[in-house]
């Protein structure tokens, strides 16, 4: 009995210690700010095949074949009804001025609305496809607007930017495009 006493004293606290550890884990999980972003699991995979009709008569429609060959390009998921999309338009204009090829996918949008959006915010897009039922959005694992994907010359998705591109993020996007050249 007497030689067992130290061991028992130690084990007596074990359940409480385990419980305290559990409480700490729960508190950590609950107090940590939750990420609201759903990242695409398609990074590193080839862009799924798609063909979208033109969203506006001024620009041709967009198919997955247009995102292949040569240099990396940006695929911008946007909508005229999306306010952050309008906010990021100066950044897209800067990227286009830097020589970046940008193609757009307009989500659940009407031709007249897209035209008004482009007239108001400028048109950095080479091609604009109309995705009326979010089919392409789902196929590439995008869950909102705006999102911007870097697609390399072989048509592989290399990077996903969730939310609007802010002014200070333009160099980062250019860096990602350069990385995608490799």
């Amino acid at each position: 009995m007497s030689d067992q006493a130290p061991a028992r004293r130690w084990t007596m606290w074990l359940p409480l210690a385990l419980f305290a550890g559990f409480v700490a884990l729960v508190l950590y999980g609950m107090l940590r700010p939750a990420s609201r972003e759903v990242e695409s699991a398609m990074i590193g995979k080839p862009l799924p095949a798609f063909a979208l009709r033109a969203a506006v008569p001024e620009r041709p429609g967009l198919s997955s074949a247009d995102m292949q060959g040569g240099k990396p390009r940006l695929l911008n998921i946007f909508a005229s009804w999306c306010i952050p999309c309008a906010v990021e338009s100066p950044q897209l204009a800067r990227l286009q001025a830097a020589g970046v090829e940008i193609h757009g996918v307009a989500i659940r949008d009407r031709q007249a609305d897209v035209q008004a959006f482009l007239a108001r915010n400028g048109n950095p897009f080479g091609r604009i496809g109309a995705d009326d039922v979010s089919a392409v959005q789902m196929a590439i694992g995008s869950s909102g607007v705006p999102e911007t994907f870097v697609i390399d010359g072989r048509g592989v998705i290399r990077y996903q930017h969730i939310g609007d591109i802010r002014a200070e993020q333009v160099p980062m996007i250019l860096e990602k495009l350069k990385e995608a050249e490799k």
Partner: protein
Amino acid sequence: MRRLIAVLALLCALPLLFATPLAAQDSLPPAPYAYRQLDDPALEAKAHALMLTLRCLKCQSQSIADSDAPMAGDMRSQVRQRIAAGESPEAIRAWLVERYGDYVSYEPRLSPLTWPLFAVPAALLLVAFLLLRRRFGGGKPR
């Protein structure tokens, strides 16, 4: 009386003022099968059971069956059309998980990350069983 009607009309019109920004999300009609059930009740039941276990990515705590978000409607339409085309629910789930990760599915899945969730309760039960047997079992007083 006329003034009362005017005031009432104004009061009725007031909510419209606040409703417009919400309605401005998008103006397209919903996808073909977003709010329309499949004609075959058996297929619809299959599709609905799957939709209950898929997460709405815009609203995050709802299933796509529960949500009125346009994207949830598009997902429902996609699910119904694929089921109608003869695809199995698990293949559709796998297609979505391939795109959005495990996050999109509410159904628990055994993976290198989640196995402790299944193993720990079993291990705890085993430990409890062994401890209780040592204390009460055997019948041999020490």
